[in-house]
C-alpha cells in the first residue's frame, strides 16, 4: 500500500500544535504567575529577590531606602527576614537594593493560605498583636506603594520558659524589646512577598 505524506498532514499538524502548547505552557507559564521571591537559593539570589520585593511595592520610591536602613521582607512561606541596606535602593538597577546580613526574625508555621492577610493573622496568632504597630504614616514620613501596608517594629522577642514540675503546668513569658532602629511596613499578596520601609 502506498501512502504519501499528505495523508499524515492532520496528525503531523496536531503533533506540532501539541508541542507548541506545551512549549507555551512551560516557557511562558511561569511568567504569568507572580514573581517567586523566596529565601531559598544562594546569597546573591536572596539579596536580589528581597531587593526586587521592595521595588515591587514601592515602585520608583524604592530609592527612598537608603544605606543604613533595614528592610523587612515577609515571604509567602511565612518567613520574616530583616536585611541591612548597604547601598541605596534604585528602581532602575537590575539589583534594586544592595542588601547584606539577612537575619531571620520569625517563621510562621506553614501558612495554609499564604496571602498577605493570612500571614498577618498568623503572625498575630503566634506573636500577638503588638507585633504590628501603627505609626509609619503618622511618625515616619508617609506610606509608600499602592498595596496595603502595615507597620512592624524592628526588635526581638525575649522569652523565658518556665515549668512547675509538681503542678504539671508551664508556659512561656515573652517580652518585646524594641531596638528602635526603623519602622517597617510589610505588604504582599500571594504568592509574592513584598517589603517596604519608612522612617
Amino acid at each position, binding site marked *: 500500500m502506498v501512502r504519501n505524506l499528505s495523508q499524515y498532514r492532520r*496528525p*503531523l*499538524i496536531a503533533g506540532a500544535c501539541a508541542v507548541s502548547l506545551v512549549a507555551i505552557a512551560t516557557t511562558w507559564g511561569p511568567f504569568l504567575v507572580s514573581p517567586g521571591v523566596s529565601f531559598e537559593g544562594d546569597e546573591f539570589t536572596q539579596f536580589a*529577590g528581597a531587593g*526586587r520585593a521592595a521595588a*515591587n511595592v514601592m515602585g520608583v520610591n524604592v530609592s527612598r531606602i537608603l544605606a543604613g536602613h533595614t528592610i523587612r521582607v515577609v515571604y509567602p512561606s511565612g518567613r520574616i527576614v530583616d536585611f541591612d541596606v548597604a547601598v541605596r535602593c534604585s*528602581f*532602575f538597577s537590575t539589583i534594586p537594593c544592595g542588601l547584606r546580613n539577612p537575619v531571620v526574625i520569625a517563621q510562621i508555621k506553614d501558612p495554609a493560605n499564604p496571602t498577605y492577610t493570612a500571614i498577618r493573622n498568623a503572625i498575630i496568632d503566634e506573636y500577638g498583636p503588638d507585633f504590628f504597630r501603627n505609626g509609619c504614616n503618622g511618625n515616619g514620613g508617609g506610606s509608600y506603594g499602592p498595596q496595603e501596608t502595615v507597620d512592624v517594629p524592628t526588635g526581638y522577642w525575649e522569652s523565658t520558659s518556665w515549668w512547675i514540675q509538681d503542678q504539671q503546668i508551664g508556659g512561656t513569658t515573652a517580652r518585646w524589646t524594641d531596638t528602635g532602629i526603623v519602622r517597617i511596613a510589610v505588604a504582599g499578596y500571594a504568592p509574592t512577598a513584598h517589603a517596604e520601609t519608612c522612617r
Partner: protein
Amino acid sequence: MSMSARLIRNLVAAAFGAALLVAGIGLFEHYGTVPDDRIVESQPAARERISSSAPGDLGTKATSGAAPSNGGGVVNSAPEAGSLGPWPQSLKSLGTASSRQWLSVYRAGIARDASLADRYMALQVMDYCLPLSSGLEFITDTKRPENYKELVRIKSAWHDRCADLRLVSRDEVLRERKRLDQDLQAPNSRFSRERLEELGDKSSPARLEALRSTLASTLSDEGGAALAWAGPSLANWLERVARNPQLQGRLPEALVAQPELIQHAVVLVQCEMAMACGNDSVAYFATCTNTGACGDSVPAVLLRLFGNQRNELLAQASIVRSALETKDLGKLGLLQ
C-alpha cells in the same frame, strides 16, 4: 486497514511531527542566537572555551583612556565586540551594548591587570545578567495589563542580551563578582562605597564635609558621566542640604522647595549624562520589571508618574544638569 492500525499510524505521525518541531526549535535556538563564529561549536564546547581561556586572550585587554590614575578607559579591541568608546563615555554605551560586547567587557574586567574602571564595568554587566540566572521571576503586573506585552518584549530582549555572558558558569561569575567588588572598595578607589557613603540621619559635620569634598572632586574631574556611580550620593547630598535650615541657603530655591523630588531629578540627569535609559537599555528593562511601571524610557516613566509635578521635576533636573555642564558646583552646594 483496521481502525487501531490507523490510529497507531496517526499517533506515530503526530509524534514525528512533534519531534520535527522540537528539532527545528532546537536548531533555531542554537544557531539563531549564538554568533556565527561559534556555529561549528556546541554550547558546552563554547562554555568550556570561555571558562578555561586566560582573561583577555580574545583581544579584550583594556587600554587606558584619558582617565585619572585609578581608572582607565575601556576600549575593547576584539573585532566582534566593537568599541564602547573612551571612559567614562563608555558607561553610557554599556546599557545598550550587544551580548558580545557585554561578554567582552566582562572578560576585560576580570583580567588581572584590568583597571578599576574596567572592573567597574565588568561588575555592571555581571549584575545585568546574574538576576536572569538566579531563578527570579519577572514581575507579574496584573494591575497594569497594558504592560504585559512590554514585559514579554523586555524578558526576551534581556535574555538575548545576556546570551553570551550566560555561557560563562554562574559560579565563576559570582566568584569574580565578589573579587571585583572587593577591588572596587579599595580606599583609593573612586567607586568606594565608603567614600561615597550616604549620609545618615545623624551624620556628623565631618562626615558631611567628607562627602561634599568627594562629590566635588569626582564631579569636577569626570563631569556628569560620574553620575553613573555617584548619582545616588549626589541625590542624598542634595536632599540633606535642602532639608537642613543651616545649609539650604547653598541651594537654588527649586531644590529646597521640594526635596522629595530631588532623587528623581538626579535620575533624569543620570539618564542624560551618564547612562542609557531608552527602551532598549538595561536601566529601562530593570525599571519596568522591578516596578511594573513601563513606558518608552526611564525618564518617560518618571514624568508620567510625577505628572502633576512634572514642571518642578524638570526644573530641578535642569539645575543639576546645568551645574554639571558648566562645572558650577556651587549650585549644588558643593563648594565650601
